[in-house]
């Protein structure tokens, strides 16, 4: 069954078509990837799905409900969670508090209860802190459990975003270039982490610039170019597609030369 259906999604910015007539489905319980050269519209697709942008036209159906035009926090409530390519970390908090923000919807949100610190709120919050620490270990941030967010290196912050997204216990996890800016060792570790997340039953959609990373772990791959669907299928199918090779290798050669 499809957890997410995207139908004829389009969005333009001042006449430029960032995403055009894009349709695809994300199946429950699998790891999917969206790849494409820089500027192909991958992040825009994420922003449209997660409600940060409103689509110019098209539909998004999540978990059987049409959610087109829903605002981000409503989508989060329905089980969508994501990370960002250019990090969105709260540097005014500790690392573990950043993760706890992800668990927000599962906690008591009453103002009065919080103000009076009624025992259930306090107890639940303490449990949440433990869970958040556990999640930090799960993503490999054991060293930073007691750290402030602004003292952590870039690679660790990328994992912190993943931990925060997982704290929501999402049905669908969207990872925006989780390996961008990481060295080969770190990339390999992120690869393994995504695999583990997928094994735990969370449906994962991955946006990646680097084709190599996604090939091994993705059940299905969607290739974008200039905001349109270029190809879709398994790693083998996509790898053998001449159009993909033409569009994508061109991009790779450019990337390799810089």
């Amino acid at each position, binding site marked *: 069954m499809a957890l997410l259906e995207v139908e004829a999604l389009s969005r333009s*910015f001042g006449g430029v078509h960032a995403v055009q007539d894009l349709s695809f489905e994300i199946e429950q319980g699998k790891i999917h990837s969206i790849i494409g050269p820089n500027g192909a519209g991958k*992040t825009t697709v994420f*922003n449209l799905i997660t409600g*940060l942008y409103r689509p110019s036209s098209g539909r998004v159906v999540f978990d059987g409900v049409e959610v087109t035009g829903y605002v981000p926090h409503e989508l989060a409530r329905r089980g969508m969670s994501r990370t*960002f390519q*250019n990090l*969105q970390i709260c540097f005014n908090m500790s690392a573990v508090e950043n993760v706890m923000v992800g668990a927000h919807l599962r906690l008591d949100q009453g103002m009065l209860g919080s103000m009076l610190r009624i025992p259930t709120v306090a107890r639940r919050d303490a449990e949440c802190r433990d869970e958040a620490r556990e999640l930090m270990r799960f993503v490999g941030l054991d060293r930073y459990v007691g750290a402030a967010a602004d003292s952590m290196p870039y690679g660790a912050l990328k994992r912190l975003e993943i931990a925060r997204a997982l704290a929501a216990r999402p049905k669908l996890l969207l990872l925006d270039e989780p390996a961008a800016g990481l060295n080969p060792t770190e990339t390999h570790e992120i690869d393994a982490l995504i695999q583990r997340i997928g094994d735990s039953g969370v449906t994962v959609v991955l946006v990646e610039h680097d084709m190599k990373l996604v090939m091994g772990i993705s059940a299905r791959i969607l290739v974008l170019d200039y905001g349109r669907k270029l190809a879709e299928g398994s790693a083998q199918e996509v790898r053998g597609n001449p159009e993909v090779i033409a569009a994508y290798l061109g991009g790779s050669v450019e990337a390799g030369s810089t």
Partner: protein
Amino acid sequence: MLSQTLQYFFSGLTNGAIYALSALGFSLIYNASGVINFAQGEFIMLGGVCAVMLTAAGVPLPLAILIAVLVVSLVGLMLEKLAIEPAGDADVVSLIIITIGASIFLQGVAQVVFGPGQRALAPFTGDAPIMIFGASLLPQSMWMMGTGALIVLILAWFFGRTRLGKAMLATAHNRLAARLVGINTRHVLALSFVISAALGAVAGVVSAPITLTSYDVGIMVGLKGFVAATLGGLGSGLGAVVGGLILGLTEALAAGYISSAYKDAVPFVLIILILFFMPRGLFGARASERV
């Protein structure tokens, strides 16, 4: 009836000219630096206060005006160099607070030097009103409107025709790109404060005969200039002028027909309504954030 309306119209345009100049000052600095300069009103106050003190000391009016403008421009430059530049990449809230601090500081200095009382500057060319369709127009009002119009023309020429003006516009549009093509954006920033200060000083001098001046007149004129700038869309030069005139007229008409006691509240009611319904002002560009 007509004469009554015309009278409000004159008074609205007279004040509107000052609001427009104040708003232009806000927009200039905002474009160059992204800073809302809450001390803009103090430039106006200082212009008036300097001119009053100099003429009282026997300096002829034209020379007094010139000195006042120069002094206030220097104050603008110092504000930028000593308070805005050292703050570096401070966030919006911090910058707002710095300029508020500057505003209070300048008021304090003016209070010490000028004293706490209210004083007026003698009108430039007498105070015999001219009658037009039964409405009276003071010569000084004409000075205010004329000066306002002249300054708008000069600024239009400066930004449209001169290299320096175009460099400033380029910087406002895209600071990094401007730097790449060799524009010294620091100088542009400093210059924007100097021009805004000079604008404020001129506005302060020409309005001092009518509105009187004291150390604390800057706040209201400044805030109304901010309202006018926001009304027209922050950063838009045309918007600032139109916003200033609309504000002046609305205020005068509301004072005349609704309630003169709430005259000073009009701009703020207006701006809150505008912000509620048109969050980027009348002429503001719609910018979308990148995530």
